[in-house]
């Protein structure tokens, strides 16, 4: 078996096994809960193993498209019309190998965790089918070799996310959240689609490899493509769906809304880095920065443990996008990887807490869990420290890389980044202190007991990754800094990812450490042993604003009501009253009325008839004779 064939086989196994699992569950396995879970988990584990083999074996190889270069597989065309063709082919480059590995790893862990977490759920089989479908779609994004294929899987992850968020569809909040997520994503996808169309018009191709040989052409195309990432990675101004998506089961939040799907936007930006002009990058970086700051501020005043994590996810995604904008896709991918580990850890930890505390999610009703759930506590703290960028944790290194990029590209963003790092440390400290320390403040917290092994096992594994992923020993950073793994950077005129200078490195390291420690310290001071949140008293209106997410939901609801809904109402009224009413009924009524009037002529009186006859004759003679 040649390398090429091996690559192809493994990639296809990775991609299609989850789909087969989903189809299998849908077609009949859903009647047996264990079989469904087994199918799904088995597929994911095999996919994980294959990904691992692929990564180890090929992580240094240049980008390769399978099977389009393989004559035997040339037939797999999804669509072909003249000069417009969409090949179903996988683009395997080091970046996609890394992403595959991340997705399958987290996927495996989350599924193991779910075995216990969802055990009593009525929609157990449906849940695993959804997860498998999601994994298929996500891996499709990772492997897609052209933009349209990417868009297809992009949409499919959207729908699997929709299905999983509204898994508990009887709950109105969950159902609404799913809908909101899907529609908000669709707004981003709208831009994405236009971007694809524009790229096709300007470049004449949609194939990523071919595109990478052309490079960026206009700012507009890049920005439109970026719209897709704004939607999927929940960037400002389309960030509103992600917190609501926490209505889904917690493992889903861990997998989809923390580690993988929301990172797909960042992944796409990194992979298509060559499509962005410097102007586009500036805008991208600012969007990322704003998202990071806003989300961090909002996170400070949230009380739901999952929502805190959701806002922190938003904030970290903003970080990654900012890094891409600062011409640092390597830093971005680095943070994406570490973030996947520690945020999955945090979410699963939160899941364990929620599981143990009978679905109590308000941190002010928890407390004192440190003693009841020691293992979970340790895991959660590990994750929190990693997220806060505590020195030598994985998050420290990746955040450091991003700050360094920002330092070189855009100084204001650097300071913004530092501020965000401080805020991050602060709210994570708040979360840990309030939820785990002190005395239990609610029934649920008092009765809590440690979760079973299926749940703690993944926690331990992820804790290890969260600590060590950034170390030089893992080689992740070096791997990403290798220029060869980036598409399109070899052509002339392309934007080259920045190389981090020593000064930047130093500045980032020092300010990052200080921010992290300062944030943790502030949090310790503010929340040590408190019974209720002291911040609203100190900050007043600002704290309210943070708690109410700066009123974005209200703003959008208002906007929607005043634009689209109002238009819809006008259209409906127009339809009902003007077209169907005035137009159709009106004209038929007019005809009817004319008919009634005309009939008056037939008065029944012979004399009138004779008169009309004579008049008719007269009219006829007048008209046609003279």
């Amino acid at each position, binding site marked *: 078996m040649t390398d090429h064939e091996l690559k192809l086989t493994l990639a296809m196994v990775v991609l299609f096994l989850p789909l087969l699992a989903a189809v299998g569950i849908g077609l009949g396995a859903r009647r047996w809960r264990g079989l469904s879970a087994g199918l799904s988990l088995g597929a994911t584990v095999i996919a994980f193993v294959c990904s691992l083999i692929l990564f180890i074996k090929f992580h240094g190889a240049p980008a390769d498209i399978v099977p389009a270069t393989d004559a035997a597989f040339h037939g797999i065309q*999804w*669509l072909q019309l003249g000069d417009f063709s969409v090949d179903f082919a996988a683009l395997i480059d080091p970046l996609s190998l890394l992403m595959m590995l991340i997705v399958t790893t987290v996927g495996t862990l989350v599924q193991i965790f779910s075995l216990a977490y969802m055990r009593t759920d009525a929609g157990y089989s449906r849940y695993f089918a959804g997860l498998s479908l999601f994994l298929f779609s996500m891996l499709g994004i990772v492997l897609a070799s052209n933009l*349209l294929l990417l868009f297809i899987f992009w*949409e499919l992850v959207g729908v699997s996310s929709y299905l999983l968020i509204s898994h508990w569809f*009887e709950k109105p909040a969950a159902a609404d959240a799913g809908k909101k997520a899907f529609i908000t994503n*669709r707004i981003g996808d709208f831009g994405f689609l236009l971007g694809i*169309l524009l790229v096709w018009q300007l470049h004449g191709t949609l194939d990523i490899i071919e595109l990478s040989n052309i490079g960026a052409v206009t700012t507009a195309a890049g920005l439109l493509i970026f719209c897709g990432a704004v939607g999927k990675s929940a960037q400002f101004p389309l960030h509103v769906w992600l917190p609501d998506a926490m209505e889904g089961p917690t493992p889903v939040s861990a997998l989809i809304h923390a580690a993988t799907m929301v990172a797909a936007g960042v992944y796409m930006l990194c992979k298509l880095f060559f499509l962005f002009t410097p102007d586009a990058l500036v805008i991208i970086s600012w969007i990322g920065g704003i998202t990071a700051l806003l989300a961090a501020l909002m996170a400070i005043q949230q009380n739901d443990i999952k929502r805190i994590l959701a806002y922190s996810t938003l904030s970290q995604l903003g970080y990654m996008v900012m890094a891409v904008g600062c011409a640092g896709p390597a830093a971005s991918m680095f943070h994406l990887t570490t973030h996947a580990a520690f945020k999955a850890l945090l979410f699963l930890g939160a899941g364990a807490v929620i599981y143990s505390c009978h679905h109590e999610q308000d941190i002010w009703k928890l407390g004192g869990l440190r003693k009841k759930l020691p293992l979970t506590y340790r895991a959660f703290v590990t994750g929190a420290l990693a997220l806060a960028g505590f020195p030598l944790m994985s998050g420290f290194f990746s955040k450091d890389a991003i700050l360094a990029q920002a330092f070189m590209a855009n100084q204001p963003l650097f300071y913004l980044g530092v501020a965000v790092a401080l805020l991050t440390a602060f709210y994570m400290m708040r979360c840990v202190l309030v939820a785990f320390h002190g005395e239990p403040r609610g029934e649920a917290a008092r009765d809590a007991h440690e979760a079973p092994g299926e749940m703690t096992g993944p926690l331990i594994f992820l804790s290890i990754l969260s600590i060590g992923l950034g170390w030089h020993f893992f080689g992740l950073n070096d791997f990403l800094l290798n220029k060869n793994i980036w598409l399109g950077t070899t052509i002339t005129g392309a934007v080259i990812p920045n190389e981090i200078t020593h000064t930047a490195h130093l500045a980032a390291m020092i300010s990052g450490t200080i921010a992290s420690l300062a944030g943790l310290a502030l949090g310790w001071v503010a929340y040590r042993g408190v019974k209720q949140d002291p911040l609203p008293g100190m900050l007043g209106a600002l704290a309210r604003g943070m708690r109410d997410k700066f009123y974005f939901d209200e703003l959008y609801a208002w906007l929607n009501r005043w634009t689209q809904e109002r238009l819809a109402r006008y259209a409906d009224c127009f339809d009902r009253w003007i077209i169907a009413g005035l137009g159709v009924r009106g004209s038929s009524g007019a005809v009817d009325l004319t008919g009634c009037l005309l009939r008056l002529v037939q008065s029944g009186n012979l004399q009138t008839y004779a008169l009309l006859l004579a008049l008719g004759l007269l009219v006829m003679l007048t008209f046609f004779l003279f």
Partner: protein
Amino acid sequence: MSPLTYIFGWPILMALVLMAVPRENRSVFRWGAILATLGSLVLALFVFAKFEPINDLTSINHGYAFVQTAEWIPSLGISFHVGVDGVSMLLVLMAALVAFAAACCAGGIKAREKEFSILLLLMTGGILGAFMALDIFLMYFLHELALIPTFIMIGVWGRGENREFAAYKTTLYLSLGALLALVGLIMIYLHYETFNLPEIIHRVQSTQPDLMTTGQQGLIFALLMFGLGILVGLWPFHTWAPLAYGAAPTATAMMHAGVIKKFGLFMIIRVALPILPDGAQQWLPVLAWLCLGNLLYCGLVAMRQRDLNGLIGNSSVAHMGFVFLGIASMTLIGLTGAVMVMVAHGLLAALAFALSGHLHQQARTLDMDKLGGLLTVMPFWGTLLLMALLAGCGLPGFANFAGEITVFFGAWKTMPLITGIAAWAALVIGAVYMLRAARQLLHGPRADDAPHTEDIPGWHKLPFIILLGALLLFGFAPKLLTNKIETARESLEHVVEMYKRK
């Protein structure tokens, strides 16, 4: 004899046979209809499989396969003339699929089964024949044969308070459309003195390209565009559609929304575009803007619907906008996309109306405010409805997406603004109303006073599965569609070339 003749002759023959059966034998009618449509379906699949492209436009059959001709009214230049190319082949297959599904779904009819079955079969035969006719008169004639049962079925077996109004409005509206188109067709005939479609097209494209002046072409094209547009629900002539589908019995709504409505579009592609390239040049820009009326405006109207059928009806009108956009783009890609959307939407509309028909049969209401949480009580139905709704908002994996995206690619280069607005309507507005329906009907808690509903039993699932299966099949492998359309490529290219000639 060509197998095509059997495909559409078989249901008509069955209708005639059923006329002689006494009305007491209720099940005979039901099974007769199913059997006849199944026969057509099997034959259509056979033809689909055997179909071999004949790309030689100069051949005696002008690139059509399975051609059969016979004299009918020679003194008017009218003949019995059937044949298929890639485009009509797909529509025939889709029509046969939907007809079979509709016959299976006709079980809800509990009164006058005899007449219903006969009308359904006439409808099926008529529309199948209309898609394969190569004589313009025959085409029109068979379409009318399919259209008229619609009116009767809405009037007799329709539901709701205003079914009579719906029947009247539909009749008058659609007849007006058909008549306008007829005037246009007669005007074409007066120039060429024949109704033989391939011959006329051949003369337009090679020997007599300038037989009609630009002004005449413009007039005729306008007549065809608006006449056929009324049949399809082109904005602003669409208000009959939601009304009619709201009142029509399930099988009728499936057949009409799914298949018969496609005829207007088919005729624009088949007759108006090739014969009237100059007319097309004058009017297609107008059509491009009108299609936004469908996509955007009807989408917005659909957002306001409280009734499931109203929503599906409006959305089905909205989806016609894609086809119009594809036609207006006048590119090979756009036209291909238009045909794909026609096929996909035919299957989808039939599926959606079949589902809403089942719900109505169970709950006696389609008011979305009164229903909720149905996914728990009717998992199979609910899953299918969810998939249909998602297909309706253009989710990849369903044939609709393949068609819509192709249309966008076809239209983008020439009309970026319109395509952009259309994409907004497709991606966002479509998602808003489709998911709203899912949220209200399937999700959420069940109301305490919700009517008792039961899932689709046993073999009754078959038609649903067939329709959904076809949607998924063509969605995952749109090449199955494009391969067939590709065989008509040369003639489509001719059309595009003629269009761009000036």
